[in-house]
């Protein structure tokens, strides 16, 4: 009990020091460091490049819509517009979580798309593992975060898949691409 305040003061001092020290680091050293966010989909944790998303929101109300696309959960109001929300677990072929997805990430494209997932595990700067590929669908790369190795989701590929399923991409254009 007597060590509690000392630890807290020590942590607080570390926070202050780290915060102050961050501004003294040259900006150039930060440019090559790309961060990822870790999300929990079903029972698995994946990584997503921070640069591939346009934002994160939590606990948005999703209004279900009748659709022929089973992955479409519905629509949600975000930043003054309605965006379609797709179940990321269903897109990845993973069994959904127990409580249902409560987080949304915005995928930047012509028509923003929301991908719903179960949990947000934080933002880290990982160790990129070059030369190692995953056989899973929509997984482009692997990173090491601490002791764990995470699969990095191919968000643009997923967005393209959704667009195809939704009929937003013409077949000829598709062939050209």
């Amino acid at each position, binding site marked *: 009990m007597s060590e509690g305040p000392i630890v807290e003061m020590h*942590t607080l001092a570390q926070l202050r020091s780290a915060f102050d020290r961050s501004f003294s680091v040259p900006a150039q050293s930060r440019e090559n460091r790309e961060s990822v966010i870790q999300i929990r989909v079903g029972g698995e944790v994946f990584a997503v490049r921070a640069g591939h998303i346009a934002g994160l929101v939590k606990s948005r109300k999703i209004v279900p819509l009748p659709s022929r696309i089973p992955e479409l959960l519905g629509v949600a109001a975000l930043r003054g517009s309605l965006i379609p929300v797709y179940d990321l677990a269903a897109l990845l072929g993973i069994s959904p979580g127990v409580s249902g997805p409560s987080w949304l990430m915005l995928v930047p494209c012509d028509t923003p798309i929301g991908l719903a997932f179960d949990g947000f595990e934080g933002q880290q700067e990982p160790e990129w593992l070059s030369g190692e590929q995953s056989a899973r669908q929509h997984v482009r790369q692997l990173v090491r975060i601490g002791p764990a190795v995470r699969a990095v989701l191919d968000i643009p590929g997923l967005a393209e898949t959704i667009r195809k399923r939704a009929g937003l991409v013409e077949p000829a254009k598709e062939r050209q691409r």
Partner: protein
Amino acid sequence: MIGSWTFQKKVTIGFAVMVGLVALTTTIAVYALRTTIAIKDSVISLNAEGMIEVARLDAAFNKGVAAFRGYIAAPDEHFVSERATALQQFDEILPRLGRTVRTEEGRRLMGEITKAHDTWKESQDRALAVRTGKDGLPAALRIMREETLPFADRMEQRIGAFVELKRRIFEEAQASSNSEASMAGTLLISLGMIAVLFAATTAVFLARSLSKQIGAAVQHVQSSSAELQASANQQASGGKEAATAMNEITTTVSELLATSRQIADSAQQVAHIAEETAAAARNGDKTVLQSQESIEGIRRQVDTIVSHMLNLGKKSQQIGLVLDIINELAEQTNILSINATIEAAGAGEQGKRFAVVGDEIRKLADRVSGSSKEIRLLVEEIRTAVNTTILATETGSKAVDAGLLRFQEVTRGFKEIGGMVVTTTQAAREIGLSTKQQMTAVEQVNTAIGGAAQAAREAEATSTQTLQTATQLAQLSRNLSRIVQSQAAV
């Protein structure tokens, strides 16, 4: 019937018969001796007197013959007086001689002698009467020759016959007395032989009977002595065992005495300790009452602690709520910072500095979130500790209640202990008193057992002596049996 007689009776009767036989023999011997002596005396006195009187008669006769012849030769008055004396003696002897005669022949001879004496005396008188005249000698001689001498010869013949008769009677009496004596001797010899035979028979009978009886008795004595020896042996061994047992009992009683003394001392100590225990119980009662009061105070303090802990739990819940807010804020901040970072990245060079700030804010938010998680964990630990403390306090409260009940029971127990200690004290005193009495009794028992042990040792010595005596008796009976059997064999 004789077989059932006792040894004394048999010996007495045997000796009585022997004494009777000896007495009979002695009586017969005395009687025979006296008879023989009487016969001898009769033979000697009567016949000797007769013989003497015959000799005297013959002497008086010869004296008369001599006086007659002297007067014839020389008539002198002297011869006359001598003749008269001789005749007088003859007349005096003749009756005495007649008293010794027992036979008819003797009496006939005595008559003939008397008659011849008278005839001879008359012829002498005539011759003497003739001699006194003148020329009387030849007439006297003639008468003498013709009458007196034949009468004198006849007289001598009669006297000689009488003497011969006397000698014959004497010899017959002597033979008769010898025969009587011989018969008496034969009778005595017969009686003696009978007595000897009876004595021998009696001796053999007594020897056989007595040897049989004594042998049986000796055998009985021998078997009895053997049994007595065995009994004495057993008694000796029993006496030894009794002496050993008495020694062991003496040792045990001594140990019992020592134990009784120890018990008496222990009882005194117990009484002393019981008194101290009573005092301690009273002090314990007071202490328990004080402790009960203290426990009631503790109970109140525990109730206060429980209320404070419950309050602390509530505060912890409130901290949890605040932490939820902080966590929510941190999460929102984190989201905002991430979104700001993403937006800054989309703003190009102008947004890089802002991206740095956003990143740092995100880190701060992460750390705040981590700290809030730590705080939540700490608060959870605090709540767990509070709950544990509350449970422990409630348990302690229950324990205090139980302790109060226990203390009440302890108080009752102390009171009961006090009562029991009083009882124990009394009992210990009674035990001490009883043990002292028991000790006295045990000392008396010890003394009595010492006497009994001495008696046992004396009994052992006596039984040993009895054993020796029985052994000697057995040896004696064997010797006696050997003697009796050897006599019986002889």
